[in-house]
C-alpha cells in the first residue's frame, strides 16, 4: 500500500483536487460558497484541450483553462455578488451549464459530444542532459511528475502565504467573516468577493487543465464529481490551504489504493466510497472545531 507507484498515483490524483480546493478556499474565505467548482473544472478541462488542439502548445492550453475558469466564475460572481442570488443555486446552475456547454462545444468542434481527439500532452520538466550528472539528478526530481503537480504544490504554499501574510489575504478573510465590518473600513466587499470567486475560477480552471492535459483528451463530464470532492476536502482541511491539500492527498491516496487493491477482492465500489464516508464522519467530528467563515453563504 505504500509502494512508490501508489504514492505517485495518489499525488497525481490529488493534483486537480488540490487546485480546485484551493480555489474553493479563496471563494469561501471571501464568503461565497462555490459549488460551481465542478463546472469550472470541467470548463477548464475543455478549454485547455481546445487551445492545445489548435495551438499544439499545452501551455497555451493551461492558460486557456485558467481563463475559462475565470470566465465561468465571473458568472458566479455576478449572480451572487451583484445580484445577491443564492450561492448554491447559482453553483448548481453553473454546473448544469458547464456540462451542457462543454458537450455542445465538443460536438461543434469535433463532431462528437462525448470526447475530443487526443492532443499532445505536457512534456516533463527537464534540464538538458548535456549539462552533466547534476542536471540529470535534478531531472529525476523535477521530471518525476507532470509539471502541474509541482505547480499545485507551490500553489498551496503561495495560497498559505497570501491568505495569512498579505493585506489581501487579511481583507479576504475579513470579508468572509464580517462583510459589514470590512465595508465600514472602506474596503469594497464587492471587490473582495469578486477577487475571491475569480481566483477560485482561475485555480479550478487550472485543475481542469491538469485533468485534461494529463489524459490528453477532453471527455464529457470528466470532472466526475471532483469539484464536490475538492469542496469536501476544503472543509475537511478546515478552510486552510495546507489542511485542504492534505485532505486532497488523502482522497487521492484512497483512490490510488483502491486501484492498487484491484484483483484482491475488495469491492471497488466500497473503496470508491471512502472519501465520501470520510468526509461525512469528519464533518461531524471536525466541524465543531473548524469554523467556517462566519458570513459564508450570506449575500452582502
Amino acid at each position, binding site marked *: 500500500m505504500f509502494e512508490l507507484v501508489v504514492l505517485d498515483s495518489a499525488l497525481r490524483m490529488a493534483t486537480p483536487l488540490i487546485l480546485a480546493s484551493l480555489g474553493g478556499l479563496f471563494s469561501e474565505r471571501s464568503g461565497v460558497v462555490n459549488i460551481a467548482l465542478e463546472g469550472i473544472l470541467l470548463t477548464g478541462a475543455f478549454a485547455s484541450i481546445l487551445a492545445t488542439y489548435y495551438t499544439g502548445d499545452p501551455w497555451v492550453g493551461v492558460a486557456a483553462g485558467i481563463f475559462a475558469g475565470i470566465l465561468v466564475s465571473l458568472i458566479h460572481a455576478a449572480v451572487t455578488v451583484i445580484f445577491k442570488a443564492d450561492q448554491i443555486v447559482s453553483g448548481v446552475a453553473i454546473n*448544469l451549464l458547464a456540462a451542457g456547454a462543454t458537450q*455542445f462545444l465538443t460536438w461543434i468542434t469535433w463532431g462528437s459530444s462525448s470526447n475530443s481527439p487526443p492532443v499532445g500532452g505536457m512534456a516533463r520538466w527537464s534540464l538538458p542532459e548535456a549539462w552533466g550528472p547534476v542536471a540529470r539528478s535534478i531531472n529525476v526530481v523535477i521530471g518525476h511528475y507532470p509539471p502541474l503537480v509541482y505547480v499545485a504544490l507551490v500553489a498551496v504554499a503561495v495560497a498559505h502565504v497570501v491568505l495569512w501574510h498579505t493585506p489581501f489575504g487579511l481583507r479576504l478573510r475579513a470579508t468572509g467573516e464580517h462583510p459589514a465590518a470590512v465595508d465600514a473600513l472602506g474596503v469594497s466587499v464587492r471587490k473582495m468577493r469578486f477577487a475571491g470567486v475569480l481566483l477560485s475560477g482561475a485555480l479550478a480552471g487550472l485543475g481542469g487543465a491538469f485533468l485534461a492535459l494529463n489524459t490528453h483528451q477532453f471527455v464529457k463530464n470528466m470532472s466526475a464529481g471532483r469539484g464536490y470532492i475538492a469542496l469536501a476536502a476544503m472543509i475537511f482541511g478546515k478552510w486552510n490551504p495546507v489542511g485542504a491539500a492534505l485532505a486532497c492527498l488523502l482522497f487521492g491516496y484512497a483512490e490510488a489504493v483502491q486501484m492498487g487493491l484491484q484483483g484482491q477482492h475488495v469491492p471497488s465500489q466500497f473503496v470508491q*466510497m471512502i472519501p465520501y464516508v470520510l468526509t461525512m464522519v469528519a*464533518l461531524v467530528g471536525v466541524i*465543531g472545531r473548524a469554523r467556517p467563515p462566519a458570513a459564508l453563504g450570506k449575500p452582502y
Partner: protein
Amino acid sequence: MNSPRASDTATRVRGLAGTGKIVDVLAPLVAVLAAFLVGGLVVAAIGESPLKFYSTLFRGAFANADSVGLVLFNATPLIFAGLAVAFAFRAGLFNIGGEGQLYIGSFACTWVALQLPGAPRVLLIPVLILASAVGGGLWAAIPGYLKARFGVHEVINTIMMNFIAVGLTSYLVIAIFKEAGQMTPQTATIPIAGELPRLAYFFQSLGVPLPAANPLNASFLIALAAVWLAWFILHRTTLGYEIRAVGHNASAAEYAGINVRRTLVLAMVLSGAFAGLVATNEVMGFRHRFLDNFSSGIGFMGIAVALLGRNSPLGVLFAALLFGVLNTGALEVDVFTDVPRELILVVQAVTIILVVVGNEIVQRRRGRGAALTPRSEAASIDRDGSAEVS
C-alpha cells in the same frame, strides 16, 4: 392615526404587494422566454435555423398523443424530484441529495418486489410504493439527523450521500442481485403484479390515440397525487405548519414550542420520500427492474424544477412539465436536426440563472418579500444546542 407620510408609504407598499402575484408568475415566464432566446441565438451562431430548431423541439413534444405521452412520462420523475427539493426548501433545507435518495428508493422498491414473488397485485403495489418512499426517506434522514444533531450543513452531506448511494446500489446490483446470465448490470425483473399499468389503454378508451408502446404509466397519476399531498401536508397539517414555521423562522418556531430538530429530520425524510417515489416511474412503471446508474441526474434536475416552480407543489408540476417538454423535444432535435441535445441543457441552466437573478431584482424593487431560497441562517442550529433542551 397615520401621519400623511405614513399613509404615502402604505399606499406605495400596498401597490407593490398587489402586483406581487402577477410578478411571481410573470418573472419565471420571462426568464424562460429569455433563456429560449439565448438558445436561439446559439443555434443561429452555429449557422442553423433557430426556427427549425424550435419547431423540431416542439414537434417532438406536441406532434401527437404519443409525443405528449412522452412529455408526461419524462416529466413524471422530475415532478417527484422537484417536490423533494421544494418540500425541503420549505423547511429551510437544501436537499441536493435527490439523486441518491431516488437510487436508494428505487433499489428498495426493487428489492422488496423481488422478495415477494407471489404477492397479489392489490398488496404488492401499495407495498412497493411505500418501499420506494421509505427507502428514499431513510436515506435522507441521515443528513437530516446530522444537520439537526450536529449542525452539519445538509448540502455537503447530501452530495456525499449521492456518491455513496450510487456506489452502494451499484455494488448490490452487480455483486449480489444481477440477473443471471446477463451482462447488463441490472436486477431481474420484478413480479408482474408489481408493475404499474401503462396509461395507453386507459387513454385509448377515452378516444385518445396513445400508442400501446408509450411508456406513460400510472406513476404519472401518483405524481399528481404527490403534488396534492405535498400541498396538503404543507398547508393542511400541523406538521406542515411546523415545517413552514421552521423554514421561515427557526427561532420563532422554537419559541412556539416546535421541536425544531425533529421537524428538520421529518421534513428531510418526507423530502427523501418524494425523491424515492421516482421508483414508481423508473422501476414499477417503466423498466420493471433496477438498472445500475439509470438516473443520469434526475435528482439534480429536481433542483432546477423546484426553483422554477418557486418551491410550490403546483409550480413544481408546471416546471416539471416544461422540463419534460424540453427533454422530449431534445431527443427529437438530436435525432432530426444538426443541433445536439446538449443545447437544451444550456437552455435549462440559463433559465435557472435568469430565474434567480430575476427574482432578486423583483425582490429588491419590492423591498422585501418571500425568499425564493431557504434562509439557511434561520435553519442553522448552534452546536451549543440552544435549539433544544435535552
